[in-house]
């Protein structure tokens, strides 16, 4: 039961009876589609998958990255061992308990169908649109999470949330979805609320939007309003998303930026992964018991060059990695087919060769979480995608 009242007390202030306020009535939402949760995090800027989860067992790796991979696995400040072949960037230290518990995993050598031009803008558009290269970049008017909603029963405006002030193409489209930026917390005196309620009384559009805004805002912990600290910002998005997901929301999406590591990659990756780890942990903490029913997919527009460049960084590439977390995912492993780093195995002689389509993993996740028909996924959510066999990303 959701309390839809704009004001909780104080109507006597202006001498109106509570019964006269339509906002004082309560409403319940129809049952949302199932209990499973899906969180899609867009890592804007092209995260270096080879630095995130490092193929230390591949002889090519150390050769291509003499600077970035200078420290040995397990050494102070070096990568964290995952298994005989893989090691995680030390910035992921906070997530290692999740790895051990099987609640954190990775998909390697994956990418969208985007190729060759390596533009952030176009790559992100394609990632969020979920289309192939047959649709001109920028032509898609809606995003794949929205098209997924269009194929689900019982979807309400609160079922899906995009969080943050940033435009999220991934959730825009014909299906209802909500958006909230924790920065725009409503902070009104009781009297101002009452008077605003009076002013909005006869205008359902304003009344309903304000009611929902007040309700969302009140659901935020005191002091939640975001400050200027860029490191805190994704945390706030995650905390807010988790609070909604604890209620009637099932799908949430937001972005975490700062991955365009052309220069000084060690520092930038460390800071970025600290933010991303904090984000995942904030989701886990905030979701509490429903973490077990949650899949978090963190994906990026493309990977980065296999070779490090001359300024201690990497440039725009092709194949990359996805981070997956949550109680619903099969963690503790690196999914996907490893193409190898031998010269002949690289894409265009410079990038990690993608061996899977990032949309197939997302497609199988939505199939597992919401029982979506494969024909619907291949026909309208990700038009033209071949999902292939179930890769076993979910438990």
């Amino acid at each position, binding site marked *: 039961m959701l309390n839809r009242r704009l004001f909780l007390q104080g109507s006597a202030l202006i001498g109106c009876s509570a019964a006269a306020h339509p906002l004082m009535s309560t409403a319940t939402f129809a049952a949302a589609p199932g209990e499973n949760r899906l969180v899609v995090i867009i890592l804007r800027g092209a995260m270096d998958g080879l630095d995130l989860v490092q193929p230390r067992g591949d002889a090519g790796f150390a050769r291509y990255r003499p600077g970035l991979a200078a420290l040995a696995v397990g050494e102070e400040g070096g990568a964290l061992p995952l298994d005989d072949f893989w090691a995680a960037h030390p910035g992921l230290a906070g997530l290692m308990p999740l790895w051990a518990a099987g609640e954190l995993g990775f998909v390697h050598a994956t990418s969208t169908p985007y190729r060759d031009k390596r533009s952030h803008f176009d790559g992100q558009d394609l990632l969020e649109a979920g289309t192939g290269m047959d649709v*001109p970049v920028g*032509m898609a008017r809606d995003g794949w999470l929205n098209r997924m909603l269009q194929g689900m029963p019982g979807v309400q405006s609160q079922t899906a949330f995009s969080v943050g002030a940033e435009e999220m193409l991934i959730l825009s489209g014909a299906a209802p979805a*909500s*958006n*909230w930026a924790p920065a*725009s917390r409503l902070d009104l*005196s009781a*009297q101002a609320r009452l008077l*605003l309620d*009076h002013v909005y009384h006869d205008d359902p559009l304003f009344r309903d939007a304000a009611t929902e805004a007040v309700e969302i805002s009140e659901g935020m912990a005191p002091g939640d309003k975001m400050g200027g600290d860029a490191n805190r910002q994704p945390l706030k998005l995650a905390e807010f998303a988790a609070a909604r997901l604890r209620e009637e929301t099932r799908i949430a999406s937001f972005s975490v930026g700062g991955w365009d590591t052309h220069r000084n990659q060690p520092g930038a990756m460390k800071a970025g992964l600290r933010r991303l780890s904090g984000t995942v942990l904030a989701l886990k903490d905030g979701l509490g018991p429903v973490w077990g029913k949650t899949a978090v997919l963190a994906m990026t527009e493309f990977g980065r060059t296999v070779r490090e460049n001359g300024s201690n960084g990497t440039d725009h590439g092709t194949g990359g990695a996805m981070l997956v977390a949550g109680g619903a995912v099969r963690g503790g492993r690196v999914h996907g087919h490893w193409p190898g780093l031998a010269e002949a195995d690289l894409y265009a002689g410079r990038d990690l060769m993608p061996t899977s389509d990032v949309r197939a993993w997302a497609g199988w996740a939505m199939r597992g979480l919401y029982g979506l028909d494969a024909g619907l996924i291949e026909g309208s959510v990700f038009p033209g995608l071949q999902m292939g066999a179930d890769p076993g990303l979910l438990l």
Partner: protein
Amino acid sequence: MPSVSTIAAIRFGTGLLPRKAGPAPAPLDAAALLGDLTARDRMAARFPVITRAEAEALARQVRPARRAAQAGTEAGDPAPDIAYRALRQQLRVATNRGAQMVLARAVDAEIGFRERLVQFWGDHFATRARGPELGPMAQVFAEEAIRPHLAGRFPDMLKAAATHPMLMVYLDQTSSVGPNSKSGRKRGGLNENLAREMLELHTLGVGGSYAQADVRQLALLLTGLSWTYRAGWHFDPTKAEPGAEVVLGEAYGGADPADVTEIHAALEDLALHPETGRHLARKLAVHFTSDDPDAGMVAAMAAAYSASGGELMPVYAAMLEHPAAWDSFGAKARQPQDFLVAALRALGVTGAQVAALAHGPANNNLLGPLRLMGQPFGAPPGPDGWPEAAAEWINPQGLAARIEWAMKGPRFWVNPLPDPRRLLRAALDDAAGERLAWAVGRAETVAEGTGLILASPDFNRR
């Protein structure tokens, strides 16, 4: 129902202005709105924007600076990297300056119908800079391709817009090469993006009677249109597909060497296609009057378009002289940019104050709030521009941002705030509803009274 003069200011202009001392100004009507478009363009002169040469000079420096920064870092010399960062900051500042000038013009304009139409047509040819390089060029686009043609012919606006670097870069025309051209036989290929959007969005409209073959033929015809940072705009015959192209049954081009006149001929015909007239008429009517505009008014506008050979003044006149233009007041919501401008006008803020803000304060008090309200300046969601429906804007996030700004934002601009009862009159005149007037008298503080007025449906609808 408010007076015609109030509706004119709110629905077609940039909002009411506080009454000044002295004789009352003449009430606004259709003739006054049309007169605004033919009067001297004082706002462009008062708040000038960057020139194309300046914007190109800035953009041209980016790639060399980036390369130098990379080389410098590799060689252990931090100076080029510092210079590169400074250049990027300079571009951001120039981009913000452009936004401030646009807002300042709308704040100071006597009526503001011209500024509203600059926005409308700018949105019709929606573009967005993909990086800091072309941020300042967005203003050049509005200044060169849109503003001079507002009261002129749409075919001329189409030619200016479609061949402008800003739109060509945004819609990938700069990477389109005729497959059988001299240069295309070596590398590169056709990109249909501009051709498709031209048919779908800029001329006939998505339901128009064109086929994929027309898109491709138009794309082939457009090859040769070029712009580079180094060389600026030029027509490059080595990229132009040889032979004639057939678009909607008409053959264009075929001259050797190809030149831009054959493209202009096709754009003229596309602009004068009857479906284009109907598409533009309806879009204008939707933007200014109602999401479901009066069919008779739209038909009259389309008829004026074709009768005049694509002149826009008769189209505006057909709209403003139709009774439906003055009906259903309040059916639309002010978009965030218009909301902010109208609020600043009502508060008595001047364009000079808006233009004078430094980079940081402009971010905090103009551009940041617009972002939270759902309309980041200069960054429409796609080539189809900003949405029109009121519900797209008045959603929980967007309305909360408006309420927050209404309650707390004005203090930055005006100190002390005006008496809310006076503000109510300035902001809405006879469009203020009883509920709002009642509530304003009961606000506990001046700031909350101000906030109630600016957050009210009365002020946010038009």
